């Protein structure tokens, strides 16, 4: 790699770092607000997490979480924050695709697209 290549890679790193930090900050704020709503509205019973039940359908899918959060439900807001947190590294990969297109590095455009596809599959396809 030549020197300008490396400088460009470093600038790419810096933009990515800002992207990641903002994503985490935004996600944490949403989770915090959701937590306050959750704890203040809850009639605070004892929850037994020893018995595994799984989450209800509306807290499993992107559309369901958006609906729940829109109703300003605590658990929905927290889940939206978590979704945003999961989306943060995905956004970083998406950013890399754009950066590699800009560098006309087609091998890595393909590699990065493959990673992005796998990530989207996990989030929307529900696994193997």
């Amino acid at each position, binding site marked *: *790699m030549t020197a300008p290549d490396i400088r460009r890679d470093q600038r790419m790193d810096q933009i990515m770092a800002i992207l990641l930090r903002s994503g985490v900050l935004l996600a944490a704020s949403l989770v915090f607000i959701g937590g306050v709503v959750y704890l203040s509205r809850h009639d605070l019973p004892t929850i037994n*997490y020893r018995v595994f039940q799984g989450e209800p359908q509306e807290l499993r899918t992107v559309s369901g979480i958006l609906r729940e959060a829109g109703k300003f439900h605590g658990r929905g807001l927290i889940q939206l924050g978590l979704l945003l947190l999961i989306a943060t590294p995905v956004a970083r990969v998406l950013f*890399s695709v754009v950066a590699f297109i800009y560098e006309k590095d087609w091998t890595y455009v393909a590699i990065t697209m493959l990673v992005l596809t796998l990530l989207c599959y996990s989030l929307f396809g529900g696994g*193997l």
Partner: protein
Amino acid sequence: MNTLEFTLLVGMGSLLAGFLGSLTGLGGGVVIVPMLTLLFHVDIRYAIGAALVSVIATSSGAAAAYVKEGYSNVRVGMFLEIATTVGALVGAAVALHLHVSVIAIIFGLALIYSAFASLREKSEHKADVAPDRIATWLGMDSSYPTENGMTPYHVRGVPLGFALMFGAGVLSGLLGIGSGAIKVLAMDQAMKLPFKVSTTTSNFMIGVTAAASAGIYLSRGYMDPGIAMPVMLGVLGGSLLGAHVLAAAKVRSLRLVFTVVIGFLAVEMIYNGFVGKM
């Protein structure tokens, strides 16, 4: 224990875990699962979901600090991401079918390995490595800043590194950990990357791998907002706090103590797995 008490206690435990994890470089995620299962009697599947969230948060939060420190090799990271994300998908799928006792035992073994790996001395010095055909074709060779200015390095052992990364991905999806220890092993030992480059690249990869597993845990309903909320906020706060006091602390002895604690937790996880108490 009511919901408020549970939230506050888990939050404080996570804060401590994040703080110690960031000071010692072991990451806060590794102790979250033992803490939730052994102390709070949370089902291990919920615990893994919450731990994944904390892994993404600390990895992404630390990225800014890592960028200042050195260079991550974006090409190496992105290529190996193929292996870790496929591995994570496989691991998360396998986790859905394994008995919780088996998961607990594997978790204990992985904990012992990462505790052991963290005690190994790290040497930055690398002998001159000859260029490698695959790495050259993939444009992986790069350079990084040292005292003598920018030092070029060659990458080797791509197939072995790729295979190890698949294993790291499987463990991440199965156990909800970052698998940082195996990632560094793959890049440091197998691919002969300079140590600083492999740690920064590993941190970048941990977030993406954990996101692949977390997506599956979320869509399968293993991600509980009531547990993930205090864990995420606690670990994130603790790790930021840890990063601030890092310069002044005597890390060596602290790392030893933390490693012993992890060792105990590992043994208890394995024991509980065998007697079926999970």
